């Protein structure tokens, strides 16, 4: 098969000195689905940004149809026939799907006026031609995430894309929607479309792709035909060493209730009920997983529990302490730690030093402050201890967090929260953006904290992670708890998918058992 796109010795160094791509050589063949896999921070997204013209390369060349190209912006890339669907959709929510589709290239009547009817016709034709079902006259706000994604794909096709880049398209989809998307993508390929599929989920790559290119640490490690390779090989290449894909886990021994959550509700600024009378009890020595498609109230639930949002109804109690609508400060004082979902803007202070970040929840304890003055040697010792235990790679704890690599920034947050004096832990997306080697360590630490008798609420959009770590599970859909599974190991992800989509709901009596009353 002929080569359509080629990167030769491509390097990309960002202004802060991060070498995100190091002499990358990539070959994409016409009419194939190429999987681009690697851990977060391996350089996949950067490479695609360079290909899509969003970032100029620092050195190296890009060949399209054998000719050297240099894109000044993504407009040039689009003109050359490259389309990209970002992880976060770029749509105007208040416009209809048809209007979004033609945005920037609107069909016009002879008078020069916008021709809405033709826009709808174009949408219908494209939708039928590529078998991507959308409702042209519906507004974007009113349709499902998976339909928005189809619209994004159609948008690139409408603009004449011959090469389609999809950046982790399945992270917002349920298992069922993922299957549907894959069937559609294969049909597109059979029509001659070239697709680059970025993912870090190996299962999906094996399901979908013809070839797979593995990236690690900014460089391309290997490229395989999908038939000639197995999962273990690829995951070893992604990490650079042997990875254990399974987790040794003792059975849980849940104790008494550590956190009593009753009837929480939250309505967002747009008047949408994000959390709808949520009740559960979190027990000591238990990991309770919360699963759901992103945006079904999990984040808001966590924000209420940790003092960052106010609930309209109900209560949160920890032992004898009432934590309903308490400040984050009071929540922490009561013995609750919180690994924030957004590590860059909430979980760390980037310009401050590692030590300042690690001590932020405990600097005022007598061990670290006396008479208002900081005890500097104690602070240094504590920071060094955490740096060592969590293997934060730095030259000194006085280095600014901003100068660390992404994975090490994550470890700063994990290190602080996992060493906090707390017996209840709310953990959001503990391994998002963390490399596989560290994931193993984080998982083992979470389990050992559970075995110490701490109560852990685990919210993660990585189904595999929740399923392997959790002792029991609750599933959230449009703000409600729709299912409770006392034994997480007895659930399949297909079954979970039905609940996550809202196609199935357990009855009230079953769900109420999570109160352990």
């Amino acid at each position: 098969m002929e080569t359509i796109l080629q990167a030769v010795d491509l390097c990309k160094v960002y202004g802060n000195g991060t070498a995100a791509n190091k002499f990358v050589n990539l070959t994409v063949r016409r009419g194939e689905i190429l999987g681009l896999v690697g851990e977060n921070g391996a350089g996949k997204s950067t490479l695609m940004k360079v290909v899509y013209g969003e970032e100029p390369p620092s050195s190296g060349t890009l060949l399209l149809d054998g000719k050297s190209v240099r894109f000044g912006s993504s407009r040039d890339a689009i003109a050359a026939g490259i389309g990209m669907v970002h992880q976060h959709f770029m749509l105007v929510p208040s416009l209809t799907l048809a209007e979004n589709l033609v945005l920037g290239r609107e069909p016009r009547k002879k008078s020069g006026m916008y021709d809405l009817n033709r826009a709808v016709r174009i949408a219908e034709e494209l939708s039928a031609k590529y078998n991507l079902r959308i409702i042209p006259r519906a507004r974007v706000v009113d349709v499902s995430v998976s339909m928005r994604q189809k619209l994004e794909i159609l948008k690139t096709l409408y603009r004449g894309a011959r090469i389609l880049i999809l950046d982790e398209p399945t992270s917002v989809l349920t298992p069922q929607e993922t299957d549907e998307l894959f069937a559609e993508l294969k049909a597109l390929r059979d029509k001659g479309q070239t697709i680059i599929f970025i993912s870090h989920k190996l299962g999906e790559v094996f399901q979908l792709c013809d070839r797979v290119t593995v990236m690690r640490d900014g460089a391309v490690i290997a490229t395989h035909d999908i038939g000639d390779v197995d999962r273990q090989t690829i995951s070893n290449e992604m990490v650079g060493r042997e990875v254990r894909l399974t987790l040794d886990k003792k059975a849980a021994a849940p104790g008494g209730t550590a956190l009593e959550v009753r009837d929480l509700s939250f309505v967002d600024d747009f008047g949408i009920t994000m959390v709808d009378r949520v009740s559960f009890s979190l027990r000591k020595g238990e990991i309770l997983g919360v699963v759901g498609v992103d945006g079904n109230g999990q984040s808001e639930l966590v924000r209420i529990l940790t003092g960052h949002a106010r609930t309209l109804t109900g209560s949160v109690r920890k032992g004898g302490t009432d934590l309903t609508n308490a400040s984050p400060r009071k929540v922490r004082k009561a013995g609750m730690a919180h690994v924030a979902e957004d590590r860059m803007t909430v979980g760390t202070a980037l310009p401050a030093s590692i030590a300042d970040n690690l001590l932020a929840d405990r600097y005022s304890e007598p061990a670290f402050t006396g008479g208002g003055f900081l005890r500097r040697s104690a602070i240094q010792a504590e920071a060094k201890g955490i740096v060592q235990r969590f293997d934060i790679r730095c030259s000194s704890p006085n280095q600014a967090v901003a100068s660390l690599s992404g994975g090490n920034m994550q470890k700063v947050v994990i290190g602080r929260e996992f060493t906090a004096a707390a017996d209840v832990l709310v953990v959001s997306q503990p391994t998002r953006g963390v490399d596989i080697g560290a994931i193993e360590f984080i998982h083992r630490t979470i389990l050992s904290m559970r075995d110490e008798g701490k109560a852990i609420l685990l919210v993660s959009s990585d189904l595999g992670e929740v399923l392997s770590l959790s002792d029991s599970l609750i599933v959230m859909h449009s703000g409600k708890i729709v299912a409770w599974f006392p034994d997480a190991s007895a659930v399949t992800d297909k079954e979970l998918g039905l609940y996550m989509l809202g196609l199935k709901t357990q009855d009230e009596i079953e769900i109420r058992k999570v109160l352990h009353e």
Partner: protein
Amino acid sequence: MSDGTRTKTLPGKVGLFFTNRDALEPALVTLFAAVFSLLAGVGLIFLVSKEPAQSARNFLLGPFLRTYNIYYMMIAMVPLTFTGLALCIIYQSKHMSLIVDSSFYIGAVVATAAGIHVALPAGWHPAFAMLAAGITGGFIGLLPAILKIRWRANELVSSLMLNYVFYFVGSFVILYFLRDRNQTILSSLPFRNTFLLPRLIPNTQLHAGFIVAAVFVVLVSVFLYRTKWGYEIRMIGANQKFAAYAGLSVPTVILYSHFVSGFLGGMGGAIEMAGLYKAFIWQMNPSYAWDGVIVAMLARKNPKFVPLSAFFLAYMRVGADFMSRRGDVAFEFITLLQGLIILILASDKIVNYFKARRLQRTALARTAEARAAGAPAGGAE
């Protein structure tokens, strides 16, 4: 990053002065801004002056050609140091309040009242006035903070507006309660002798306020970098969302940082009164807060560099003054130079230019090396 492990340094701070390039390079850029502005000043002189060489010499060397000019610089450093320190604290918390202008002015008014109406022995008298002015300045400093916390009013805007309010309040108090009606010009009643600060050197105006300013440089440095309150201020400055998440009470920190800042402003106003004047004779607000902005920016928000940058600003001022008295270039031309300094220092891209370039180069070289060594990737960082 190649600085070794340091055990004795404070979190968030590396070494006493510069121990790595991350700190050194912005300092060099700051130096560049200073030198560049001086050179631009010389260029301007050559553009407008009839005898440029003489004027340029007076501008650049004048401050050191006369002993009294050296004292002038030291005297001018005192208010600049106080407002500079006050703004360092505000800027460290990433707020933009300029209310310290009011704190300074009202501080001077409060000190005037104390200097006229309070009877205390020498030494105690100015100390009492400074404390009273500081506390008043502190409470004034709180106002934009309260507006911000309560109604999310932008503290820069509200402080600028309040500055007008307090200027007129101050003038009103002087005019109606403290004015000396026997004088034809606007002046308050004379201060009691016990109120006046002692001179450090006889027959000069250099007063004990210079020592007080020096002491406060040390105090504010310690406060910001060695106490938990300073830590809290720096944390809400580094990332306010993070500070709240980690359990800091952000409103409390905003309140006391503004109070401390206003306190310093108020003290500065009182010292200016007790050090330099025999009565309150300001016809308008001297607006040292704006100078404090330049001082704090030149010091890169770090109190320990405030004396240096206050000295630089005083040097420019005295030089320009000396030159304008002896030539045809107006004193006001240094406002141009100050604007230039702010423009350069406010641009992150200029300040971090060398760092970005160096990081890019080393990163590229490192990957090229790794590749030459046959490794497919750079390995762990």
